[in-house]
């Protein structure tokens, strides 16, 4: 009978917490399955690839080369090799294909050069695969005898080094989107007293300031650990600090906005956990955008977290000027401001409900 009574109590608890149950048992697992829809394939088919015309290359040559790539890539044309190189560093494209002008010459030999960036370590094997695919596809389409050279730019990186910025970004996401709302919620009872002494905006601002500044500690720890392991990773640079700061603020603002909009209920923590999982799954943390499907590519390019990831990776692994990522930074600044406005609105809703 004890068991029956306890089970009855659990059923009543469930009825009283339908919002939480809905998020935990319906939306989260449903979201996880829905998320799998954008992971369609493991062979790259929609990865953006830059196409650069070499001297003497005609539009027909380019069109034929692009036709040879559509099996595994989405071609993006660049005016020059330098532009394509920048595109690689900005992760607009993950390969750059230099098309020669003699692919339509039946008796000639055409040498296509495929350039990839060593900083994107997990893509090395797919790139090698793609080089072979490109060679056979283009060779089959054009009269010339096509050979493909693979050129790699940037310093040699290990997978361990590649994972340092990825891991740090994942940490910031959990810290801002899950831990900070949890911490604020743990002090929900004292919020009433704080509002008799201060403003809720000020209380929340103090949380953002303190826990934002505290991020210096994990950043320093990661830098020290990377140094200890002998990794060639620039953890602390003006660009990486700026990106981490902005990423923390906009993710924390969104997490806190969810928390206050849902009246500091436990449900908010699970909603934020779901958002963190979505960020991990859709921001191209480890594989190129579009690697798994064009839908995944489209979604990740619409997310600010994608630009945080790319800029962080570049700041730590690539020898590229910060100015190359200026538009990404502005996008992150705009996202941060918008998320702070959303947070302000959520606080207003919370106060108005009282």
């Amino acid at each position, binding site marked *: 009978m004890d068991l029956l009574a306890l089970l009855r109590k659990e059923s009543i608890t469930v009825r009283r917490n339908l919002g939480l149950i809905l998020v935990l048992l319906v939306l989260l697992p449903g979201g996880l399955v829905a998320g799998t829809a954008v992971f369609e394939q493991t062979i790259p088919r929609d990865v953006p690839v830059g196409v650069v015309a070499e001297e003497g290359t005609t539009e027909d040559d380019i069109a034929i080369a692009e036709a040879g790539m559509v099996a595994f890539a989405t071609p993006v044309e660049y005016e020059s090799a330098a532009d394509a190189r920048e595109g690689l560093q900005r992760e607009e494209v993950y390969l750059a294909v230099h098309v020669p002008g003699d692919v339509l010459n039946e008796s000639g030999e055409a040498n296509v050069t495929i350039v990839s960036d060593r900083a994107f370590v997990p893509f090395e094997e797919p790139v090698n695969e793609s080089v072979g695919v490109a060679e056979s596809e283009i060779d089959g389409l054009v009269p010339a005898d096509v050979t493909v050279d693979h050129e790699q730019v940037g310093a040699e990186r290990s997978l361990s080094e590649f994972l340092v910025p990825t891991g740090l970004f994942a940490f910031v996401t959990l810290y801002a989107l899950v831990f900070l709302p949890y911490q604020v919620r*743990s*002090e929900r*009872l*004292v*919020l*009433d*007293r704080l*509002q*008799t*002494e*201060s403003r809720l905006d000020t209380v929340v601002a103090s949380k953002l300031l303190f826990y934002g500044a505290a991020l210096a500690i994990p950043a320093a720890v990661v830098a020290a650990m990377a140094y200890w392991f002998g990794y060639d990773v620039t953890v602390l640079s003006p660009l990486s600090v700026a990106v981490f700061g902005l990423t923390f603020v906009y993710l924390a603002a969104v997490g806190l906005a969810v928390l206050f909009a849902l009246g500091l209920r436990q449900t908010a923590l699970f909603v934020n956990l779901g958002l963190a999982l979505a960020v991990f799954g859709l921001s191209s943390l480890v594989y190129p955008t579009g690697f798994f499907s064009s839908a995944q590519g489209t979604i990740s390019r619409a997310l600010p977290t994608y630009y945080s990831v790319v800029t962080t990776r570049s700041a730590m692994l690539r020898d590229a000027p910060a100015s190359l990522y200026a538009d990404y930074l502005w996008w992150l600044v705009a996202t941060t401001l918008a998320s702070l406005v959303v947070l302000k609105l959520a606080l207003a809703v919370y106060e108005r409900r*009282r």
Partner: protein
Amino acid sequence: MTDADSTHDAGSDSASRDAPDGDDSSLALVDVTKRYGETTALEDLSLEFRPGTFHGLIGPNGSGKTTLFALLAGLTQPTSGRIERADATADVGYSFQEPRFYPSLTVRENLEIFRGFVDDPPPDAWTETLLEELRLEPAADRRADELSGGFRKKLDLGLALIKRPQYLLLDEPLADVDDYSRRRITSFLDSYREADRTVVVSTHNVAAFADQLDRLSVVVDGDLRYDGPPAEDVVSQYRTLLE
């Protein structure tokens, strides 16, 4: 609910449905109504809290006392009507029915943090006075979330008093507090209003403060049923008002 006339019938010497005739340093609710959705917590209520008084706000559970305190403390806004505070710089200290403090801080740390919110805080000695008068000294260096119910309540009281406010709002301040501490606290609060400060105690246990009350307001179902001087037998007076 009672109608407006019952306030006067019960012997009020100042309360009315119109704006209270308060003096320069009073705190007042004027024609205040507070609704939560379909529920009316307070209905067209006017009430004044005067300096130097020990004001009892009495009523059964769910009568609207806590809502009235939340309005006075600025935690919520009236649906209609207004809150008047003649001296804008006069501050309000609020001891909640359910204690509100930082659970991971010690008693002393909580007091120090909330003292830090005040622009011109009372001297350090005030903190020591509170620890002594509220019998918090034995728990001063213990984490707040490890305190017993009585100590939690006393800490909350200490936090309401830490800035030495002009208006002190106490919601069931003696709940869970032991008898000895009750006598100490009641005596301390009695002396607190002597410096022209106002102590407002919300309780359903009118007997606990019968000897201290200068003024009595009885709220029932969101309506002001009585506002005036307490009778000699305030418990009997309260029972009569409830009938």
